[in-house]
């Protein structure tokens, strides 16, 4: 490379940078903003590439990140990654742009009247520590499935083992917690037994209220690419709305909202009645279970006999299920015959449709149960598998235990032995961890949005890596009310201004993704690692450092909880010479790999429920490893693909084919549940005659904080809309592009109509995506939640729809 070429390249780079930075273009005039600079031949040699998991969804694709001159310049799908084999989706291909939105937060900001003024980090940390120190019991922390594992470990330890408070919850409460209660109820331990390899082996794929073509596109293409290669796979979409997924399916079974429980019971009914359930599998590995009417709050219920189980299912004939669900009886029989055929390999996938459900635990249990009853379990391709929405909902929240009732490694706050265990592992005095679970998400925000003298006993709330001002249900009640309350202090660690920072009293600018070290855990138990590749902008800093800095300031203020048994600061890290590294000073934070230390401490928690993690360095080398990762006699570490299956899981003993070694009933058996269909808490009526369903779109990831800053994605999907059935549109007298008002008992929103666009709902239903921060559909949604998982139902509430005249009020 000669000097002239380099100069020219540098010149081109700079001029392009100037041009791109200056452009804010309207639609149709924006080619310049997208154009690449041209480069002389041989370009790209000076780009340094490193691996990272994608920042977005729970699929956990690996990307290769190309860095030049301290900036990310390119992304490639990682062909070395088993998850995605070199392929990405449109979000993943553009993930490098999330770092460079023009409005990145770069300095701490404190509220002054209506606006915010910059303050120093030292002032910010001091302000927080003083406030927490004054009333630690009235402080809560709200985190995220986008927290790295290290960030979650630090926050969990800071709260539960430091402040002695369990008021820490994560947003997977809104997203995954019914999957958790489903796994616990059936197997006694969380997370799927199968993995993505099932997608390569199944010949029937059933998607329950699931649209993976948009939400988990890489996993979906993993299946339909097989078909393109000539393999035969039956794809069945059990849904309430036609989507891009439906377009690829041979069967589309459209059901009335909430009646997925009836469909699952209908399948179980047929298996029992036709006698084609798997007698051997059930006899060896299963018990039957139902809720205990005497203890309705007990998630684990009470046993029932097979005869009682059959009797409970008696009413769920295909014809009865058809009346409830609208799915033709012959299709219910088709499903029954499929499950009754052991020569098939059936994988079920689900995500928010089954989880964001006031009967979320029940429908999760039922889908597991029909797989168990029919023996479609434990062979490659036979698996009930829940997908996650966030990159580390599993890794950081479900495994690290950053929910208000959990401790690390599958332990419970309410269990004394578990608390003692954690106090030993964290090296804090016995009794430090409180026995009572803290507030779950909905309750936490309810308390924060209630006046302090009226029972609202959370006054200071620290939100990291999430956007509850957009994602909480019934926002007027659970979030917006904060604006009018005295004495409430909202701290938000963020990368861009959001619906949440609007009401923040203190905004902390955070480093994101490859601006910091990190680890994530995806949907298939795969723990992934990456290193920091570029510097965060301005004064933005790691969330993990923020937590440790506040903890240390509390330590300096004399808070006893910030000391361990040995009297040392709870986040003490020593270098190789044994000297303490002051990681609470930002300038010294990267003198050691804090992530490595936190991970090695956390790793010791993971053996108890056989979720064994390998040493940090194994993850540095791998494109993720699926737990349990068990050391072999030759010193290598082996991951596990099929849990509970004797041919693969090293924790199955005695040569058993299947062993549920964390069984609720302590007999190595899983639980087959009966749960009846029940009506949802709010249904359409004469006043509010439509069902409202909310969800995501391919181009945007959740609240669009990151993807909304990517021109390519924003331009493809610029704003929220409402999908109507064409007949409903005709009756309302509206056409594509007209504005309608969606109104519930809680709020209202005006949106343009899109008919037969991205999706197509059934008659009497409307669909609205939630990514658009300028049009918050969650001001309309319902905050009713599942009694076991405490997960709200974003998929069904009653609304009315009316045409807004063109000159009427529009938002």
């Amino acid at each position, binding site marked *: 490379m000669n000097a002239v070429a380099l100069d020219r390249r540098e010149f081109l*780079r700079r001029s*392009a*940078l100037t041009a*791109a*930075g200056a452009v*804010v*273009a309207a*639609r*149709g005039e924006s*080619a310049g903003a*997208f*154009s*690449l*600079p*041209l*480069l*002389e*031949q*041989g*370009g*790209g040699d000076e780009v340094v590439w490193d691996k990272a998991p994608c920042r977005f969804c729970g699929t956990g694709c690996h990307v*290769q990140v*190309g860095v030049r001159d301290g*900036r990310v*310049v*390119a*992304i490639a*799908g990682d*062909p*070395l990654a088993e998850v995605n084999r*070199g*392929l990405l989706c*449109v979000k993943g*291909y*553009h993930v490098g*742009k999330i*770092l460079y*939105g*023009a*409005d990145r937060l770069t300095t701490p900001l404190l509220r002054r009247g209506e606006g915010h003024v910059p303050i120093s980090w030292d002032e910010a940390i001091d302000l927080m520590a003083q406030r927490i120190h004054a009333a630690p019991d009235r402080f809560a922390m709200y985190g995220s499935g986008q927290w790295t594992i290290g960030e979650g470990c630090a926050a969990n330890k800071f709260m539960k083992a430091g402040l002695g408070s369990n008021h820490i919850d994560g947003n997977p409460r809104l997203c995954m917690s019914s999957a958790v209660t489903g796994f616990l109820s059936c197997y006694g331990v969380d997370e799927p037994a199968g993995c993505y390899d099932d997608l390569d082996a199944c010949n029937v794929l059933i998607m329950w209220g699931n649209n993976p*073509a948009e939400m988990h596109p*890489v996993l979906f*293409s993993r299946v*339909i690419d097989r078909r393109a290669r000539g393999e035969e796979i039956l794809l069945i979409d059990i849904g309430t709305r*036609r989507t*891009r997924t439906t377009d690829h399916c041979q069967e589309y079974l459209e059901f009335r909202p909430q009646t997925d429980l009836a469909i699952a019971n209908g399948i179980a009914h047929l298996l029992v009645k036709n006698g084609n359930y798997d007698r051997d599998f059930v006899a060896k590995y299963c018990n039957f279970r139902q809720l205990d009417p005497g203890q309705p709050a007990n998630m684990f219920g009470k046993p029932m006999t097979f005869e009682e189980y059959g009797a409970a299912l008696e009413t769920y004939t295909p014809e009865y299920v058809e009346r409830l669900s609208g799915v033709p009886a012959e299709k219910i029989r088709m499903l029954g015959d499929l499950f009754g055929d052991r020569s098939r390999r059936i994988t079920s996938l689900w995500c928010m449709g089954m989880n964001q459900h006031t009967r979320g635990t029940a429908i999760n249990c039922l889908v597991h149960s029909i797989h168990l009853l029919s023996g479609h379990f434990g062979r490659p391709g036979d698996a009930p598998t829940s997908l996650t929405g966030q990159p580390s909902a599993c890794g950081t929240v479900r495994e690290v235990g950053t929910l208000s009732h959990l401790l690390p490694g599958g332990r419970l706050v309410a269990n004394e032995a578990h608390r003692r265990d954690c106090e030993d592992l964290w090296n804090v005095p016995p009794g430090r961890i409180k026995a009572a679970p803290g507030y779950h998400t909905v309750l936490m925000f309810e308390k924060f949005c209630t006046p302090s003298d009226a029972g609202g006993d959370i006054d200071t709330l620290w939100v990291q890596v999430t956007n509850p001002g957009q994602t909480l249900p019934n926002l007027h009640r659970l979030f917006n009310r904060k604006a009018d309350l005295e004495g409430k202090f909202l701290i938000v660690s963020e990368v861009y201004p959001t619906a949440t920072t609007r009401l923040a009293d203190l905004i902390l600018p955070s480093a994101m993704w490859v601006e910091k070290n990190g680890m994530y855990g995806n949907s298939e138990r795969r723990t992934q690692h990456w290193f920091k590749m570029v510097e965060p902008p301005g004064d933005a800093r790691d969330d993990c450092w923020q937590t440790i800095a506040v903890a240390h300031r509390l330590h300096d203020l004399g808070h006893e909880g910030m000391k361990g048994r040995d009297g040392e600061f709870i986040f003490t890290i020593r270098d190789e010479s044994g000297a303490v590294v002051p990681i609470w000073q930002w300038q010294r934070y990267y003198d050691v790999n804090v992530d490595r230390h936190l991970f090695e401490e956390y790793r010791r928690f993971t053996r108890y429920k056989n979720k064994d993690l390998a040493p940090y360095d194994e993850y540095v*080398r791998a*494109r993720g490893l699926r737990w349990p990762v068990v050391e072999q006699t030759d010193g290598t570490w082996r991951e596990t693909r099929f849990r509970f299956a004797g041919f693969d899981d090293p924790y199955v003993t005695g040569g058993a084919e299947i062993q549920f070694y964390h069984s609720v009933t302590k007999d190595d058996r899983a639980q087959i549940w009966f749960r009846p269909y029940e009506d949802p808490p709010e249904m359409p009526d004469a006043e509010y005659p439509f069902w409202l369903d909310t969800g995501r779109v*391919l181009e945007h990831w959740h609240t669009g904080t990151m993807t909304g*800053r990517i021109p390519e994605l924003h*331009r*493809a999907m*610029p*704003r929220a*809309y409402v999908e109507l059935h064409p007949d409903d549109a005709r009756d309302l007298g509206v056409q*594509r592009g007209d504005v309608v008002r969606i109104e519930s008992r809680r709020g209202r929103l005006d949106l*343009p109509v899109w008919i*037969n*666009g*991205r999706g197509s709902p059934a008659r009497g239903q409307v669909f609205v995506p939630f990514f658009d921060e300028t049009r918050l559909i969650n001001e309309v949604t319902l905050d009713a939640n599942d009694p076991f998982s405490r997960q709200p139902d974003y998929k069904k509430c009653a609304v009315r729809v009316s045409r807004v005249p063109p000159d009427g009020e529009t938002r």
Partner: protein
Amino acid sequence: MSPSFRTESPTQRVIHILLLGVMALALVGLVVGLRQGRPAREAEAPAVVHARPHPTAIPATSWAEFDRRTDGPNRRWPPSLAEMRQPALDWEAEPVRTEAGRRAVLAARAARRAFDGAPPTVPHPIDQMSASSCVACHAEGRWIGEGVWAPMMSHPHLPSCTQCHVPKEPTEFEPLLMPENSFVGLAAPLGGSRAWEGAPPTVPHTLFMRNNCLACHGPTAPEAIRTAHPLRVNCLQCHAPSASLDPWWRGFDESDDLLSAVRP
């Protein structure tokens, strides 16, 4: 649809419809004329040119009815794909390849990509629900109009088109301001290197997901990047790819452990 209707030939049907239309128009004209009476003063009639529908034309769908149509844009609307005239390809013509032409081609290519290696955005509206309309034109590549070439997919085994390619222009909603973003993408190289004058150029891009060189360099390609010898199909016999450009090779340089991890 009644059986008798089905036996009707399309021409008869159109004639019937036209006749019905003429009769209805005459009747309406009569009624309107009678009701308006004779104008007091003769106004100058505007010059109206009545377009006569082509006998095989299918009536256009009104905007209001558009949403209720269930067929895709290409199923019944002439000209059908099969009727799109495709020029004969000249497999032996010597392309004229200029530096300026190459720059123009690469500039057009770059305008649809965030960085070299990014999937291109789609420069036209799409069917939001179905990928089959993408494949209709892009599976084989097709001239869809004067000088407009719908390029051939270079990875036909990947059928979920919208997973990676988003439309560049939204058509549904009002114009919006674009988010400002200072990302600068890795640029595409102008071309491969040659060991010396006359040596075959190296491949300047990754081959990952590019299973068909002729998709971009074949007889339908812009001249500036078109091969002069499309009939020599074993391209990599002479044109060497670069491991440094291929994501497959990245990560192997650190240790051999990775190799054993992916190739047991």
